[in-house]
């Protein structure tokens, strides 16, 4: 939880929600678990304002609460990872669309927008976006079941039956076995019917949720695992061949049910299991699969290895090593873009060979010795490389000392992650600045679009459109382009963040 991560998260809160929520989130991020009263005092907000903000954040799984029995009060703490998941939400919805289609995408998008939803709420909400609503509920339900079975959506902890009046906080708990338990369609339909009747009879929205309503939320861990797999497959597709990447995709799919989360490598999958599991349309024969596996274990040795010989050969995908390679590739790319190709060569050598002397660097890299010295000291100054001094004599005389240079990949990864968070924050801040600068124009365009929708005749439309001057139109185009660039850059920086943080999670 570094300063730049906190900055990035507060920017996300400010842009997506409002300043009050940002203030509360920021206070919790900077000060750790806190009480309600302390928050109100220190932030200058009123108690009910803080409560509203907290309610919102809790619903979005961004704040958690615990009861501190020692101090006898409730403590709220922030979950920065879930705040940053907002940035990644487009990637999540794209992933679901590619796997299960538009309906599933709509479900996930709605749940992400609302934090936690009950199944009737989900179905109602998604149905509104459908043009053709016939049999809509059943379709949505089936897609929902598919999402839960593949663990992309899970139940939120529910109120325990053992609650009593004296409990200061709601006792929310859930069993592992219940996490992915979907009620039957008939039950859901009944519930929806009951809701509709209540709505009709009371003629006002039913605010009070029933105590035993089941709420569902997006399983961020599962999505991150999926993205992890996608990243590895994409890398292998580039390094080896797209067909080889499909084989790895199948291997990962087969092992995802068997491997527990957070492990450095998958459970070994046998050759025959793999052959069986491969999609038929790839038409990969026994012989071809054997050949591809041989090439993979050589050309992509850090990503996939043969573990044993049983069942025609046992193969595992290595997450830890694979992500170490990807992290190093990012470090090299960053060094190359900032300092040049010669510097990239130097840092690659240092990452490949553990401790190298300056003379060895000069000989191996074949760079002019004067330049090589300059490069090494620049990288040293910017903390990409570190130096160890080994004295030949008892006194530390430079002439009689060995200087060994090396790269501490973990430390560099942390430094770059920090930089990435700062960049993310800057991109969001710039976006907000651009929107503020062009507020007048944006509002004008919105009003015009609303009115244009109501005008029928083309001549009148044209006449009306002339209300916006060419200069304003150019300005608006520039603004739209700027927003597009900033959004795209945000996604790209988030990809770098994902690789760096996944690597660091394995190396702990």
């Amino acid at each position, binding site marked *: 939880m570094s300063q730049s991560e906190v900055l990035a998260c507060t920017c996300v809160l400010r842009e997506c929600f409002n300043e009050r929520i940002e203030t509360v989130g920021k206070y919790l991020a900077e000060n750790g678990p806190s009480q309600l009263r302390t928050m109100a005092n220190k932030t200058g907000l009123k108690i009910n304002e803080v409560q509203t903000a907290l309610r919102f954040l809790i619903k979005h799984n961004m704040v958690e609460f615990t009861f501190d029995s020692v101090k006898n009060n409730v403590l709220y703490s922030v979950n920065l990872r879930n705040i940053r998941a907002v940035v990644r939400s487009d990637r999540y919805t794209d992933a679901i669309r590619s796997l299960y289609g538009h309906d599933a995408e709509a479900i996930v998008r709605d749940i992400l927008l609302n934090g936690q939803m009950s199944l009737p709420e989900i179905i109602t909400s998604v149905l509104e976006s459908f043009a053709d609503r016939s049999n809509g509920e059943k379709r949505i339900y089936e897609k929902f079941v598919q999402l839960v079975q593949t663990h992309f959506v899970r139940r939120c902890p529910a109120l325990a039956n053992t609650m009593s009046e004296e409990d200061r906080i709601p006792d929310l708990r859930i069993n592992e076995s219940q996490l992915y338990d979907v009620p039957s369609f008939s039950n859901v339909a009944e519930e929806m019917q009951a809701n509709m009747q209540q709505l009709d009879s009371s003629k006002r929205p039913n605010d009070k949720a029933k105590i035993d309503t089941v709420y569902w939320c997006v399983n961020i861990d599962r999505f991150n695992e999926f993205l992890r797999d996608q990243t590895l497959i994409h*890398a292998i597709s*580039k*390094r080896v*061949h797209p067909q*080889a990447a499909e084989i790895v995709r199948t291997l990962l799919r087969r092992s995802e049910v068997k491997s527990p989360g957070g492990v450095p490598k998958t459970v070994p999958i046998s050759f025959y299991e793999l052959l069986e599991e491969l999609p038929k349309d790839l038409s990969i024969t026994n*012989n*071809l699969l054997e*050949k*591809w596996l*041989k*090439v993979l274990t*050589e*050309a992509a040795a850090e990503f996939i290895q043969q573990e044993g010989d049983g069942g025609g050969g046992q193969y595992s995908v290595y997450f830890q090593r694979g992500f170490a*390679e*990807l992290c190093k*590739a*990012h470090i*090299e*790319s*960053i060094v190359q*873009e*900032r300092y040049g*190709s010669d510097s*990239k*060569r130097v840092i*690659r*050598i240092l990452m*490949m060979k553990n401790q190298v002397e300056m*003379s060895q660097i000069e000989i*191996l*890299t*074949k*760079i*002019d*010795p004067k330049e090589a010295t300059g490069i090494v000291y620049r990288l040293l100054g910017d903390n990409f490389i570190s130096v160890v001094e080994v004295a030949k004599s008892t006194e530390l005389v430079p002439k009689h000392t060995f200087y060994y240079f090396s790269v501490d990949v973990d430390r560099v990864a942390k430094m*770059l992650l920090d*930089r*990435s968070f*700062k*960049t993310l*924050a*800057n*991109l969001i*801040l*710039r976006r907000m*600045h651009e929107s503020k600068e062009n507020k007048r124009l944006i509002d004008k365009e919105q009003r015009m679009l609303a009115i244009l929708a109501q005008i029928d005749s083309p001549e009148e439309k044209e006449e009306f459109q002339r209300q916006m001057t060419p200069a304003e139109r150019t300005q608006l185009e*520039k603004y739209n*382009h*700027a927003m597009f*660039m*900033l959004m795209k*850059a945000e*996604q*790209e*920086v*988030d*990809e*770098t963040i994902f690789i760096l943080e996944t690597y660091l999670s394995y190396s702990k």
Partner: protein
Amino acid sequence: MSDMTVEVKQEPGEDDIQKRILTLLKEHPKGLKETEICCYFQDSTAEIVRNVNILMQQNRISFHLNKDGGVLLKLAVPSVASSQVLDIDENEQLVLQLIEEVGNKGIWRHEIHRKSKIVEVQLNKILKNLTTKKLIKPITSVLAGKKKMYILANLEPNESVTGGNFYSGQQFDSEYFKMLHAMCYKFLEDKAEEVRKLPLNPVEQRMRTFLSTSDVHEAIQNSKVSKVELKPQEIDDILLTLVFDGKAEHVVRTTAQGGHTNYYCAVAALIETSGLMRTPCGQCPLLNDCKEGGIISPSSCEYMKNWLTF
């Protein structure tokens, strides 16, 4: 020590002693002290000393200074120092011998001073003398340009001193190297492209994409880009820099004769440019000072402004 210019008359029977001394020295290539030689023979010390002097005069044995400063006698190797009729004194001969011993690696002036224990001023004179007589020549090493090194006049300095073909004079010829580097990469890429078009199975495709050092060497020779003939080791060095650039992969295969051959193939990058570097903040030297509301901020950033209008 004996006076070299005086002729010593050889007496009969001394031949035998001399032969024995020479045989003994052959068996001890590291050299023996005069006293040690005496231990081996029953002849009187005087006799042995006399014969040692004769042999030295005939230049069949030579004396060397060992680490303790003592004198060792060794079988003389036919050398420049002795084979010519030289008008040089013993100090100059010593210096010449030291230079000769290191062969084509060259010896640092400071080292000569340390080993011969000759005073600096005198050493300078000796070196100057030997240079004018064209017996030795000064050279400079690429590894330490400031050190004055000397080598026998008729020898060429070896690779570690001159740097090989990549160095012209004392400078590393980076233009030449970059050209060769680009050429080698092109060969590897072309080979990969060629093999990709063939309808082979994956294993064969991978095997065929690799080129050996000699393949690349031949290709470079045929293209005639280099006026100088490059050695296979130098080609290996160039190909290794491609591996260090992340553009090539290196594999060692054992040949039928039991030797090792280096094989290289072009390799695709693992990722496109890192996302962080596609933003101006990735390159910015002032990121640590950048703060909203400060002088340097995202809202007022010039780099951002230029980047957004791109």
